Protein backbone atom coordinates (compact mmCIF):
# COMPACT_ATOMS: atom_id res chain seq x y z
CA UNK A 1 0.00 0.00 0.00
CA UNK A 2 2.74 2.42 1.01
CA UNK A 3 4.82 1.59 -2.05
CA UNK A 4 1.76 2.03 -4.23
CA UNK A 5 1.33 5.60 -2.96
CA UNK A 6 5.02 6.21 -3.60
CA UNK A 7 4.69 4.77 -7.09
CA UNK A 8 1.96 7.24 -7.96
CA UNK A 9 3.66 10.08 -6.08
CA UNK A 10 6.82 9.85 -8.16
CA UNK A 11 4.81 9.76 -11.37
CA UNK A 12 2.63 12.72 -10.47
CA UNK A 13 4.04 15.75 -12.24
CA UNK A 14 2.22 18.28 -10.08
CA UNK A 15 3.49 16.77 -6.87
CA UNK A 16 7.08 16.50 -8.11
CA UNK A 17 7.18 20.06 -9.48
CA UNK A 18 5.61 21.50 -6.31
CA UNK A 19 7.97 19.61 -4.03
CA UNK A 20 11.04 20.65 -6.02
CA UNK A 21 10.06 24.35 -5.93
CA UNK A 22 9.38 24.25 -2.18
CA UNK A 23 12.65 22.44 -1.51
CA UNK A 24 14.68 24.93 -3.53
CA UNK A 25 13.20 27.91 -1.67
CA UNK A 26 13.47 26.16 1.67
CA UNK A 27 17.16 25.44 1.13
CA UNK A 28 17.70 29.02 -0.06
CA UNK A 29 15.97 30.34 3.07
CA UNK A 30 17.78 28.06 5.50
CA UNK A 31 21.27 27.92 4.01
CA UNK A 32 21.29 31.17 1.99
CA UNK A 33 21.60 33.67 4.87
CA UNK A 34 24.72 31.85 6.11
CA UNK A 35 26.51 32.54 2.83
CA UNK A 36 25.90 36.29 3.10
CA UNK A 37 28.50 38.15 5.10
CA UNK A 38 26.34 41.09 6.15
CA UNK A 39 22.98 41.70 7.77
CA UNK A 40 19.96 42.36 5.48
CA UNK A 41 19.53 45.91 6.80
CA UNK A 42 23.21 46.88 6.42
CA UNK A 43 24.10 49.64 3.98
CA UNK A 44 26.63 47.79 1.86
CA UNK A 45 26.45 49.08 -1.69
CA UNK A 46 25.71 52.06 -3.88
CA UNK A 47 22.13 53.36 -3.69
CA UNK A 48 19.53 52.28 -6.26
CA UNK A 49 21.89 50.03 -8.19
CA UNK A 50 20.22 47.62 -10.66
CA UNK A 51 21.07 43.89 -10.47
CA UNK A 52 24.72 43.17 -11.09
CA UNK A 53 27.30 40.46 -10.49
CA UNK A 54 28.01 41.79 -7.04
CA UNK A 55 24.40 42.48 -5.96
CA UNK A 56 22.31 39.87 -7.74
CA UNK A 57 18.98 41.58 -7.04
CA UNK A 58 20.35 45.15 -6.98
CA UNK A 59 20.17 47.51 -4.01
CA UNK A 60 17.51 49.66 -2.33
CA UNK A 61 17.32 53.44 -2.17
CA UNK A 62 19.60 53.23 0.86
CA UNK A 63 22.12 50.82 -0.64
CA UNK A 64 20.85 47.71 1.14
CA UNK A 65 21.40 44.38 -0.62
CA UNK A 66 18.00 43.18 -1.96
CA UNK A 67 19.26 39.62 -2.43
CA UNK A 68 20.31 39.38 1.22
CA UNK A 69 16.91 40.71 2.28
CA UNK A 70 15.25 38.17 0.00
CA UNK A 71 17.10 35.22 1.57
CA UNK A 72 16.40 36.37 5.12
CA UNK A 73 12.83 37.15 4.07
CA UNK A 74 12.33 33.60 2.78
CA UNK A 75 13.35 32.37 6.20
CA UNK A 76 10.68 34.40 8.03
CA UNK A 77 8.12 33.51 5.38
CA UNK A 78 8.65 29.79 5.92
CA UNK A 79 8.73 30.27 9.66
CA UNK A 80 5.42 32.13 9.71
CA UNK A 81 3.88 29.59 7.33
CA UNK A 82 4.97 26.53 9.31
CA UNK A 83 4.22 27.93 12.76
CA UNK A 84 0.90 29.47 11.74
CA UNK A 85 -0.05 26.39 9.70
CA UNK A 86 0.81 23.94 12.47
CA UNK A 87 -1.04 25.93 15.12
CA UNK A 88 -4.13 26.37 12.94
CA UNK A 89 -4.09 22.65 12.06
CA UNK A 90 -3.80 21.63 15.70
CA UNK A 91 -6.66 23.87 16.81
CA UNK A 92 -8.73 22.82 13.79
CA UNK A 93 -8.10 19.14 14.50
CA UNK A 94 -8.89 19.33 18.20
CA UNK A 95 -12.11 21.25 17.60
CA UNK A 96 -13.08 19.15 14.58
CA UNK A 97 -12.39 15.77 16.21
CA UNK A 98 -14.07 16.60 19.50
CA UNK A 99 -17.12 18.18 17.85
CA UNK A 100 -17.50 15.40 15.30
CA UNK A 101 -16.88 12.51 17.68
CA UNK A 102 -18.77 13.72 20.73
CA UNK A 103 -21.79 15.20 18.99
CA UNK A 104 -24.63 16.54 21.14
CA UNK A 105 -24.26 19.83 22.98
CA UNK A 106 -20.45 19.75 22.74
CA UNK A 107 -20.83 19.71 18.98
CA UNK A 108 -23.45 22.48 19.04
CA UNK A 109 -21.21 24.70 21.14
CA UNK A 110 -18.02 24.09 19.16
CA UNK A 111 -19.82 24.53 15.84
CA UNK A 112 -21.19 27.83 17.08
CA UNK A 113 -17.73 29.04 18.08
CA UNK A 114 -16.31 27.82 14.76
CA UNK A 115 -18.96 29.66 12.79
CA UNK A 116 -18.36 32.87 14.69
CA UNK A 117 -14.60 32.83 14.09
CA UNK A 118 -15.27 31.79 10.49
CA UNK A 119 -17.41 34.82 9.75
CA UNK A 120 -15.02 37.32 11.33
CA UNK A 121 -12.62 38.54 8.62
CA UNK A 122 -9.26 37.24 9.87
CA UNK A 123 -7.01 39.92 8.43
CA UNK A 124 -9.03 42.76 9.91
CA UNK A 125 -8.94 41.18 13.36
CA UNK A 126 -5.19 40.70 12.99
CA UNK A 127 -4.86 44.35 11.99
CA UNK A 128 -6.41 45.53 15.23
CA UNK A 129 -4.43 43.10 17.37
CA UNK A 130 -1.10 43.92 15.74
CA UNK A 131 -1.69 47.67 15.74
CA UNK A 132 -1.82 47.66 19.53
CA UNK A 133 1.27 45.46 19.84
CA UNK A 134 4.25 47.78 20.04
CA UNK A 135 6.92 45.16 19.43
CA UNK A 136 6.08 42.48 16.87
CA UNK A 137 7.99 39.30 16.11
CA UNK A 138 7.49 36.56 13.54
CA UNK A 139 6.51 34.15 16.31
CA UNK A 140 3.76 36.37 17.72
CA UNK A 141 2.49 37.06 14.20
CA UNK A 142 2.30 33.32 13.53
CA UNK A 143 0.55 32.77 16.86
CA UNK A 144 -2.27 35.17 16.02
CA UNK A 145 -2.54 33.95 12.43
CA UNK A 146 -2.86 30.40 13.74
CA UNK A 147 -5.54 31.44 16.22
CA UNK A 148 -7.71 33.09 13.55
CA UNK A 149 -7.41 30.80 10.52
CA UNK A 150 -8.48 27.38 11.82
CA UNK A 151 -12.30 27.44 11.42
CA UNK A 152 -12.74 25.99 7.93
CA UNK A 153 -10.30 23.21 8.80
CA UNK A 154 -12.29 22.43 11.94
CA UNK A 155 -15.49 22.30 9.93
CA UNK A 156 -14.04 19.98 7.31
CA UNK A 157 -12.47 17.66 9.90
CA UNK A 158 -15.69 17.59 11.90
CA UNK A 159 -17.62 16.45 8.83
CA UNK A 160 -15.08 13.71 8.12
CA UNK A 161 -15.07 12.55 11.74
CA UNK A 162 -18.84 12.46 11.69
CA UNK A 163 -18.81 10.00 8.81
CA UNK A 164 -16.19 7.79 10.46
CA UNK A 165 -17.48 7.61 14.01
CA UNK A 166 -20.27 5.13 13.39
CA UNK A 167 -18.09 2.67 11.48
CA UNK A 168 -17.75 -0.86 12.84
CA UNK A 169 -14.10 -0.58 13.83
CA UNK A 170 -14.81 2.52 15.90
CA UNK A 171 -17.75 0.80 17.61
CA UNK A 172 -15.52 -2.17 18.32
CA UNK A 173 -12.87 0.02 19.92
CA UNK A 174 -15.52 1.73 22.03
CA UNK A 175 -17.00 -1.60 23.12
CA UNK A 176 -13.59 -2.86 24.17
CA UNK A 177 -13.32 0.11 26.52
CA UNK A 178 -10.76 2.21 24.68
CA UNK A 179 -10.83 5.80 25.93
CA UNK A 180 -12.04 8.60 23.67
CA UNK A 181 -8.72 10.40 23.04
CA UNK A 182 -7.17 7.08 22.06
CA UNK A 183 -10.04 6.21 19.72
CA UNK A 184 -9.62 9.55 17.99
CA UNK A 185 -5.84 9.20 17.71
CA UNK A 186 -5.67 5.49 16.83
CA UNK A 187 -8.87 4.76 14.92
CA UNK A 188 -10.17 7.97 13.40
CA UNK A 189 -7.14 10.17 12.65
CA UNK A 190 -5.17 7.52 10.70
CA UNK A 191 -8.15 6.96 8.42
CA UNK A 192 -8.08 10.57 7.35
CA UNK A 193 -4.35 11.21 7.60
CA UNK A 194 -4.08 12.19 3.94
CA UNK A 195 -6.92 14.66 4.43
CA UNK A 196 -5.24 16.14 7.49
CA UNK A 197 -2.01 16.59 5.59
CA UNK A 198 -3.77 18.37 2.73
CA UNK A 199 -5.46 20.65 5.26
CA UNK A 200 -2.09 21.52 6.76
CA UNK A 201 -0.65 22.42 3.34
CA UNK A 202 -3.53 24.79 2.60
CA UNK A 203 -3.25 26.42 6.05
CA UNK A 204 0.50 26.75 5.49
CA UNK A 205 -0.09 28.63 2.23
CA UNK A 206 -2.80 30.87 3.61
CA UNK A 207 -0.70 31.76 6.67
CA UNK A 208 2.04 32.98 4.31
CA UNK A 209 -0.41 35.10 2.35
CA UNK A 210 -2.01 36.62 5.46
CA UNK A 211 1.40 37.42 6.93
CA UNK A 212 2.45 39.07 3.67
CA UNK A 213 -0.65 41.30 3.70
CA UNK A 214 -0.06 42.30 7.31
CA UNK A 215 3.57 43.12 6.60
CA UNK A 216 2.57 45.11 3.55
CA UNK A 217 0.13 47.26 5.53
CA UNK A 218 2.99 48.09 7.86
CA UNK A 219 2.28 45.71 10.74
CA UNK A 220 5.07 43.27 10.00
CA UNK A 221 7.70 42.04 12.45
CA UNK A 222 9.69 44.92 13.94
CA UNK A 223 12.78 42.81 14.57
CA UNK A 224 13.42 41.08 11.24
CA UNK A 225 12.92 41.30 7.50
CA UNK A 226 10.23 39.41 5.57
CA UNK A 227 9.10 39.25 1.97
CA UNK A 228 5.95 41.25 2.79
CA UNK A 229 8.02 43.86 4.60
CA UNK A 230 10.23 44.22 1.51
CA UNK A 231 7.12 44.97 -0.56
CA UNK A 232 6.03 47.45 2.09
CA UNK A 233 9.40 49.25 1.99
CA UNK A 234 9.47 49.26 -1.80
CA UNK A 235 6.01 50.84 -1.93
CA UNK A 236 6.78 53.31 0.84
CA UNK A 237 9.96 54.57 -0.79
CA UNK A 238 8.35 54.88 -4.24
CA UNK A 239 10.28 52.08 -5.95
CA UNK A 240 7.37 52.00 -8.40
CA UNK A 241 7.72 55.61 -9.51
CA UNK A 242 11.53 55.37 -9.59
CA UNK A 243 11.36 52.25 -11.80
CA UNK A 244 13.29 50.10 -9.30
CA UNK A 245 11.63 46.86 -10.36
CA UNK A 246 14.33 44.74 -8.73
CA UNK A 247 13.09 45.87 -5.34
CA UNK A 248 9.46 44.77 -5.63
CA UNK A 249 9.53 41.92 -8.17
CA UNK A 250 11.62 39.32 -6.23
CA UNK A 251 9.67 39.34 -2.93
CA UNK A 252 6.29 39.03 -4.64
CA UNK A 253 7.61 36.38 -7.01
CA UNK A 254 8.98 34.46 -4.03
CA UNK A 255 5.63 34.46 -2.20
CA UNK A 256 3.74 33.54 -5.37
CA UNK A 257 6.12 30.69 -6.17
CA UNK A 258 5.99 29.22 -2.66
CA UNK A 259 2.21 29.47 -2.23
CA UNK A 260 1.56 28.35 -5.82
CA UNK A 261 3.86 25.35 -5.35
CA UNK A 262 2.00 24.46 -2.15
CA UNK A 263 -1.37 24.57 -3.93
CA UNK A 264 -0.08 22.50 -6.85
CA UNK A 265 1.44 20.00 -4.41
CA UNK A 266 -1.91 19.83 -2.68
CA UNK A 267 -3.69 18.86 -5.90
CA UNK A 268 -0.95 16.38 -6.76
CA UNK A 269 -1.23 14.71 -3.36
CA UNK A 270 -4.99 14.62 -3.68
CA UNK A 271 -4.60 12.72 -6.94
CA UNK A 272 -2.13 10.31 -5.36
CA UNK A 273 -4.42 9.56 -2.43
CA UNK A 274 -7.65 9.51 -4.41
CA UNK A 275 -7.56 7.04 -7.32
CA UNK A 276 -10.67 8.57 -8.88
CA UNK A 277 -8.88 11.82 -9.63
CA UNK A 278 -5.83 10.34 -11.34
CA UNK A 279 -5.49 11.37 -14.96
CA UNK A 280 -6.33 8.51 -17.22
Amino acid at each position, binding site marked *: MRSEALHFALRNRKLVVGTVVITVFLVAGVVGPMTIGHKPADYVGPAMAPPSGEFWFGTTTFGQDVFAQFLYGLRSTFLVGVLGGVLASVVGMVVGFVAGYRGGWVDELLTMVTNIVLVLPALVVLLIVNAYLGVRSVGVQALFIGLTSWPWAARAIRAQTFSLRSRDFVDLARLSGVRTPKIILREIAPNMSSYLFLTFILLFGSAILIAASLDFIGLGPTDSVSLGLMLNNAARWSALQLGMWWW*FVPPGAGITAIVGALYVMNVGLDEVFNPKLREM
Partner: protein
Amino acid sequence: MRRYFGRKLLVYGLTFFVAVTVNWMIPRFMPGDPVQSMLSRANVAQPAAVEAMRVHYTAMFGFDLPLWRQYLNFWGSLLRGDLGISIWLFPTPVTDVIVRAVPYTLGLLIPSILLSWVAGNRFGAFAARRKWLDNTVLPLGYVLTATPYMWLAILLAWALGIIAGIFPVAGAYGFDLQPSWSWEFVGSLAQHWFLPFASLFLVAFGGWAIGMRNMIIYELEADYVNYLRALGAPTRLVRRYAFRNAILPQVTGLALQLGVLVAGALVTEIVFSYPGLGHLILQAIQNQDFFLLQGTFLFIVIGVLIANFVIDIAYVLVDPRTRTGMGEAA
Protein backbone atom coordinates in the same frame (compact mmCIF):
# COMPACT_ATOMS: atom_id res chain seq x y z
CA MET B 1 -36.41 27.19 6.35
CA ARG B 2 -37.36 29.43 9.22
CA ARG B 3 -35.04 27.38 11.41
CA TYR B 4 -32.28 27.79 8.85
CA PHE B 5 -32.49 31.56 8.86
CA GLY B 6 -33.03 31.64 12.61
CA ARG B 7 -29.77 29.80 13.22
CA LYS B 8 -27.88 31.97 10.76
CA LEU B 9 -29.15 35.17 12.33
CA LEU B 10 -28.22 33.87 15.78
CA VAL B 11 -24.67 33.20 14.61
CA TYR B 12 -24.39 36.62 13.00
CA GLY B 13 -25.78 38.34 16.07
CA LEU B 14 -23.30 36.53 18.29
CA THR B 15 -20.48 37.33 15.87
CA PHE B 16 -21.32 41.00 16.06
CA PHE B 17 -21.36 40.80 19.84
CA VAL B 18 -17.97 39.06 19.85
CA ALA B 19 -16.55 41.59 17.39
CA VAL B 20 -17.62 44.53 19.55
CA THR B 21 -16.29 42.85 22.67
CA VAL B 22 -12.95 42.08 21.02
CA ASN B 23 -12.83 45.65 19.82
CA TRP B 24 -13.38 46.86 23.35
CA MET B 25 -10.95 44.41 24.95
CA ILE B 26 -7.89 44.86 22.73
CA PRO B 27 -6.92 48.40 23.78
CA ARG B 28 -7.47 47.46 27.40
CA PHE B 29 -5.84 44.06 27.73
CA MET B 30 -3.08 44.01 25.13
CA PRO B 31 0.46 44.86 26.18
CA GLY B 32 1.28 48.44 25.26
CA ASP B 33 -0.39 51.70 26.25
CA PRO B 34 -2.40 53.43 23.51
CA VAL B 35 -2.52 56.72 25.43
CA GLN B 36 1.25 56.71 25.76
CA SER B 37 1.82 56.01 22.07
CA MET B 38 -0.62 58.76 21.09
CA LEU B 39 1.22 61.17 23.39
CA SER B 40 4.62 60.27 22.01
CA ARG B 41 3.30 60.78 18.49
CA ALA B 42 2.04 64.28 19.37
CA ASN B 43 5.61 65.08 20.42
CA VAL B 44 4.85 67.91 22.85
CA ALA B 45 7.67 69.11 25.10
CA GLN B 46 5.84 70.99 27.88
CA PRO B 47 5.01 68.66 30.79
CA ALA B 48 1.83 70.59 31.61
CA ALA B 49 0.52 70.19 28.06
CA VAL B 50 1.41 66.47 28.07
CA GLU B 51 -0.50 66.03 31.32
CA ALA B 52 -3.55 67.78 29.90
CA MET B 53 -3.44 65.60 26.81
CA ARG B 54 -3.07 62.46 28.89
CA VAL B 55 -6.19 63.36 30.86
CA HIS B 56 -8.04 64.13 27.63
CA TYR B 57 -7.10 60.85 25.89
CA THR B 58 -7.73 58.78 29.01
CA ALA B 59 -11.21 60.28 29.20
CA MET B 60 -11.78 59.62 25.49
CA PHE B 61 -11.09 55.93 26.00
CA GLY B 62 -12.88 56.11 29.33
CA PHE B 63 -9.96 54.43 31.10
CA ASP B 64 -10.73 56.28 34.32
CA LEU B 65 -14.01 54.40 34.91
CA PRO B 66 -14.52 50.88 36.30
CA LEU B 67 -14.32 48.17 33.62
CA TRP B 68 -17.99 47.16 33.57
CA ARG B 69 -18.96 50.82 33.20
CA GLN B 70 -16.46 51.23 30.33
CA TYR B 71 -17.98 48.22 28.59
CA LEU B 72 -21.56 49.50 28.92
CA ASN B 73 -20.54 52.99 27.79
CA PHE B 74 -18.79 51.46 24.79
CA TRP B 75 -22.03 49.77 23.69
CA GLY B 76 -24.02 52.90 24.48
CA SER B 77 -21.97 55.20 22.27
CA LEU B 78 -21.80 52.51 19.58
CA LEU B 79 -25.60 52.29 19.42
CA ARG B 80 -25.77 56.08 19.09
CA GLY B 81 -23.44 55.74 16.08
CA ASP B 82 -20.66 57.50 17.97
CA LEU B 83 -17.28 55.89 17.26
CA GLY B 84 -15.18 58.74 18.60
CA ILE B 85 -13.21 61.53 16.96
CA SER B 86 -10.56 60.84 14.38
CA ILE B 87 -7.07 61.97 15.32
CA TRP B 88 -5.72 61.89 11.80
CA LEU B 89 -8.48 64.20 10.53
CA PHE B 90 -9.14 66.00 13.82
CA PRO B 91 -11.90 66.96 14.66
CA THR B 92 -14.00 64.95 12.16
CA PRO B 93 -16.06 62.17 13.78
CA VAL B 94 -14.81 58.69 12.83
CA THR B 95 -18.24 57.75 11.47
CA ASP B 96 -18.12 60.60 8.93
CA VAL B 97 -14.61 59.69 7.80
CA ILE B 98 -15.66 56.08 7.25
CA VAL B 99 -18.95 56.85 5.52
CA ARG B 100 -17.05 58.98 3.01
CA ALA B 101 -14.64 56.10 2.24
CA VAL B 102 -17.14 53.22 2.07
CA PRO B 103 -18.50 53.92 -1.46
CA TYR B 104 -15.01 53.61 -2.96
CA THR B 105 -14.39 50.25 -1.33
CA LEU B 106 -17.82 48.92 -2.28
CA GLY B 107 -17.34 50.19 -5.83
CA LEU B 108 -14.23 48.05 -6.10
CA LEU B 109 -15.40 45.03 -4.14
CA ILE B 110 -18.88 44.32 -5.44
CA PRO B 111 -18.08 44.28 -9.18
CA SER B 112 -14.83 42.38 -8.73
CA ILE B 113 -16.38 39.73 -6.48
CA LEU B 114 -19.46 39.16 -8.64
CA LEU B 115 -17.73 39.25 -12.02
CA SER B 116 -14.80 37.06 -10.95
CA TRP B 117 -17.19 34.55 -9.40
CA VAL B 118 -19.39 34.29 -12.50
CA ALA B 119 -16.53 34.32 -15.01
CA GLY B 120 -14.29 32.02 -12.95
CA ASN B 121 -17.01 29.42 -12.51
CA ARG B 122 -17.94 29.41 -16.19
CA PHE B 123 -14.35 29.19 -17.26
CA GLY B 124 -13.43 26.49 -14.72
CA ALA B 125 -16.41 24.36 -15.76
CA PHE B 126 -15.43 24.80 -19.39
CA ALA B 127 -11.78 23.86 -18.82
CA ALA B 128 -12.44 20.73 -16.73
CA ARG B 129 -11.47 17.50 -18.47
CA ARG B 130 -10.49 19.26 -21.69
CA LYS B 131 -6.90 18.19 -22.12
CA TRP B 132 -5.18 21.21 -23.59
CA LEU B 133 -7.09 23.84 -21.62
CA ASP B 134 -6.53 21.88 -18.44
CA ASN B 135 -2.81 21.69 -19.07
CA THR B 136 -2.14 25.21 -20.25
CA VAL B 137 -4.54 27.49 -18.43
CA LEU B 138 -4.78 25.81 -15.05
CA PRO B 139 -1.16 26.32 -14.05
CA LEU B 140 -1.87 29.98 -14.74
CA GLY B 141 -4.88 29.77 -12.43
CA TYR B 142 -2.72 28.39 -9.64
CA VAL B 143 -0.20 31.17 -10.09
CA LEU B 144 -2.98 33.79 -10.01
CA THR B 145 -4.64 32.46 -6.89
CA ALA B 146 -1.27 32.22 -5.11
CA THR B 147 -0.36 35.80 -6.00
CA PRO B 148 -0.53 38.24 -3.10
CA TYR B 149 -3.12 40.88 -4.05
CA MET B 150 -0.75 43.76 -3.45
CA TRP B 151 1.94 42.27 -5.64
CA LEU B 152 -0.31 41.88 -8.68
CA ALA B 153 -1.54 45.42 -8.02
CA ILE B 154 2.05 46.70 -7.92
CA LEU B 155 2.94 44.83 -11.11
CA LEU B 156 -0.11 46.16 -12.97
CA ALA B 157 0.53 49.69 -11.75
CA TRP B 158 4.13 49.41 -12.86
CA ALA B 159 3.51 47.84 -16.27
CA LEU B 160 0.31 49.64 -17.35
CA GLY B 161 0.65 52.77 -15.25
CA ILE B 162 4.30 53.78 -15.08
CA ILE B 163 5.85 52.14 -18.15
CA ALA B 164 2.97 52.14 -20.64
CA GLY B 165 1.41 55.23 -19.10
CA ILE B 166 -2.13 54.13 -20.00
CA PHE B 167 -3.66 54.28 -16.52
CA PRO B 168 -3.14 56.59 -13.55
CA VAL B 169 -1.72 54.85 -10.48
CA ALA B 170 -2.87 57.01 -7.57
CA GLY B 171 -6.15 58.36 -6.20
CA ALA B 172 -9.75 57.80 -7.24
CA TYR B 173 -9.93 60.71 -9.72
CA GLY B 174 -7.62 63.33 -11.20
CA PHE B 175 -6.02 65.68 -8.69
CA ASP B 176 -7.23 68.65 -10.75
CA LEU B 177 -10.92 67.64 -10.51
CA GLN B 178 -13.67 68.27 -8.00
CA PRO B 179 -16.27 65.54 -7.45
CA SER B 180 -19.28 66.34 -9.66
CA TRP B 181 -21.56 64.59 -12.13
CA SER B 182 -19.74 65.81 -15.23
CA TRP B 183 -18.54 63.44 -17.96
CA GLU B 184 -14.98 64.45 -17.32
CA PHE B 185 -15.16 63.48 -13.68
CA VAL B 186 -16.94 60.18 -14.28
CA GLY B 187 -14.40 59.29 -16.97
CA SER B 188 -11.53 60.06 -14.64
CA LEU B 189 -13.23 57.99 -11.94
CA ALA B 190 -13.53 55.00 -14.29
CA GLN B 191 -9.93 55.34 -15.41
CA HIS B 192 -8.65 55.32 -11.84
CA TRP B 193 -10.98 52.48 -10.92
CA PHE B 194 -9.87 50.08 -13.62
CA LEU B 195 -6.46 48.90 -12.40
CA PRO B 196 -7.43 48.21 -8.76
CA PHE B 197 -10.52 46.42 -10.07
CA ALA B 198 -8.47 44.38 -12.56
CA SER B 199 -5.99 43.16 -9.96
CA LEU B 200 -8.75 42.14 -7.55
CA PHE B 201 -10.64 40.45 -10.37
CA LEU B 202 -7.66 38.47 -11.69
CA VAL B 203 -6.54 36.97 -8.37
CA ALA B 204 -10.10 35.98 -7.42
CA PHE B 205 -10.79 34.67 -10.93
CA GLY B 206 -7.90 32.18 -10.66
CA GLY B 207 -9.26 30.81 -7.41
CA TRP B 208 -12.84 30.35 -8.65
CA ALA B 209 -11.73 28.76 -11.93
CA ILE B 210 -9.62 26.16 -10.15
CA GLY B 211 -12.27 25.46 -7.52
CA MET B 212 -14.93 24.92 -10.19
CA ARG B 213 -12.65 22.77 -12.34
CA ASN B 214 -11.93 20.48 -9.39
CA MET B 215 -15.62 20.30 -8.44
CA ILE B 216 -16.62 19.39 -11.98
CA ILE B 217 -14.03 16.62 -12.09
CA TYR B 218 -15.52 15.17 -8.89
CA GLU B 219 -19.03 15.46 -10.30
CA LEU B 220 -18.11 13.82 -13.60
CA GLU B 221 -17.13 10.69 -11.62
CA ALA B 222 -20.49 10.54 -9.85
CA ASP B 223 -22.99 7.73 -10.39
CA TYR B 224 -25.65 9.92 -11.93
CA VAL B 225 -23.17 10.99 -14.61
CA ASN B 226 -22.26 7.40 -15.43
CA TYR B 227 -25.96 6.58 -15.58
CA LEU B 228 -26.70 9.50 -17.91
CA ARG B 229 -23.79 8.52 -20.10
CA ALA B 230 -24.96 4.93 -20.22
CA LEU B 231 -28.34 6.20 -21.38
CA GLY B 232 -26.54 8.01 -24.16
CA ALA B 233 -27.21 11.55 -22.98
CA PRO B 234 -25.30 14.21 -24.92
CA THR B 235 -22.14 15.52 -23.25
CA ARG B 236 -23.54 19.04 -23.03
CA LEU B 237 -26.51 17.88 -20.99
CA VAL B 238 -24.28 15.87 -18.65
CA ARG B 239 -22.02 18.84 -18.11
CA ARG B 240 -24.99 21.05 -17.39
CA TYR B 241 -26.14 18.74 -14.60
CA ALA B 242 -22.61 18.56 -13.24
CA PHE B 243 -22.40 22.35 -13.26
CA ARG B 244 -25.63 22.75 -11.33
CA ASN B 245 -24.38 20.42 -8.65
CA ALA B 246 -20.91 21.93 -8.54
CA ILE B 247 -22.17 25.48 -8.17
CA LEU B 248 -23.51 24.85 -4.63
CA PRO B 249 -20.13 24.45 -2.91
CA GLN B 250 -18.97 27.49 -4.84
CA VAL B 251 -21.76 29.57 -3.27
CA THR B 252 -20.62 28.39 0.16
CA GLY B 253 -17.05 29.09 -0.96
CA LEU B 254 -18.02 32.66 -1.73
CA ALA B 255 -19.08 33.15 1.88
CA LEU B 256 -15.86 31.55 3.11
CA GLN B 257 -13.72 33.71 0.84
CA LEU B 258 -15.32 37.03 1.78
CA GLY B 259 -12.73 37.80 4.43
CA VAL B 260 -9.88 37.12 2.02
CA LEU B 261 -11.48 39.24 -0.70
CA VAL B 262 -12.00 42.16 1.67
CA ALA B 263 -8.39 41.85 2.80
CA GLY B 264 -7.34 41.87 -0.85
CA ALA B 265 -9.31 45.06 -1.49
CA LEU B 266 -7.68 46.74 1.51
CA VAL B 267 -4.11 46.11 0.36
CA THR B 268 -4.96 46.90 -3.28
CA GLU B 269 -6.33 50.27 -2.19
CA ILE B 270 -3.10 50.95 -0.35
CA VAL B 271 -1.07 50.26 -3.51
CA PHE B 272 -3.17 52.67 -5.55
CA SER B 273 -3.73 55.23 -2.75
CA TYR B 274 -7.42 54.61 -3.47
CA PRO B 275 -9.44 56.56 -0.87
CA GLY B 276 -11.42 53.60 0.50
CA LEU B 277 -11.27 51.77 3.82
CA GLY B 278 -7.83 50.29 3.11
CA HIS B 279 -6.41 53.76 2.76
CA LEU B 280 -8.07 54.75 6.05
CA ILE B 281 -6.53 51.76 7.79
CA LEU B 282 -3.08 52.69 6.53
CA GLN B 283 -3.50 56.29 7.71
CA ALA B 284 -4.91 55.13 11.04
CA ILE B 285 -1.91 52.89 11.63
CA GLN B 286 0.64 55.47 10.55
CA ASN B 287 -0.99 58.18 12.69
CA GLN B 288 -1.74 55.93 15.68
CA ASP B 289 -5.40 56.82 15.18
CA PHE B 290 -6.90 53.98 17.19
CA PHE B 291 -10.47 55.28 17.08
CA LEU B 292 -10.44 55.31 13.30
CA LEU B 293 -8.89 51.84 13.16
CA GLN B 294 -11.49 50.37 15.52
CA GLY B 295 -14.34 52.09 13.73
CA THR B 296 -13.18 50.74 10.39
CA PHE B 297 -12.95 47.27 11.91
CA LEU B 298 -16.57 47.42 13.05
CA PHE B 299 -17.75 48.70 9.68
CA ILE B 300 -15.98 45.88 7.86
CA VAL B 301 -17.40 43.28 10.23
CA ILE B 302 -20.93 44.62 9.74
CA GLY B 303 -20.41 44.62 5.96
CA VAL B 304 -19.16 41.04 5.96
CA LEU B 305 -22.11 39.94 8.12
CA ILE B 306 -24.61 41.54 5.74
CA ALA B 307 -22.88 39.96 2.75
CA ASN B 308 -22.99 36.57 4.45
CA PHE B 309 -26.70 36.93 4.98
CA VAL B 310 -27.24 37.83 1.33
CA ILE B 311 -25.29 34.71 0.32
CA ASP B 312 -27.46 32.62 2.66
CA ILE B 313 -30.55 33.89 0.88
CA ALA B 314 -28.92 33.15 -2.48
CA TYR B 315 -28.13 29.63 -1.29
CA VAL B 316 -31.77 28.99 -0.53
CA LEU B 317 -32.71 30.20 -3.99
CA VAL B 318 -30.12 27.99 -5.69
CA ASP B 319 -30.51 24.84 -3.60
CA PRO B 320 -34.04 23.43 -3.65
CA ARG B 321 -33.26 21.09 -0.74
CA THR B 322 -33.04 23.94 1.80
CA ARG B 323 -36.41 25.19 0.61
CA THR B 324 -38.26 21.97 1.21
CA GLY B 325 -36.36 21.33 4.43
CA MET B 326 -35.07 17.99 3.19
CA GLY B 327 -31.47 18.60 4.13
CA GLU B 328 -29.60 20.57 6.72
CA ALA B 329 -27.61 23.20 4.86
CA ALA B 330 -24.02 23.67 5.90
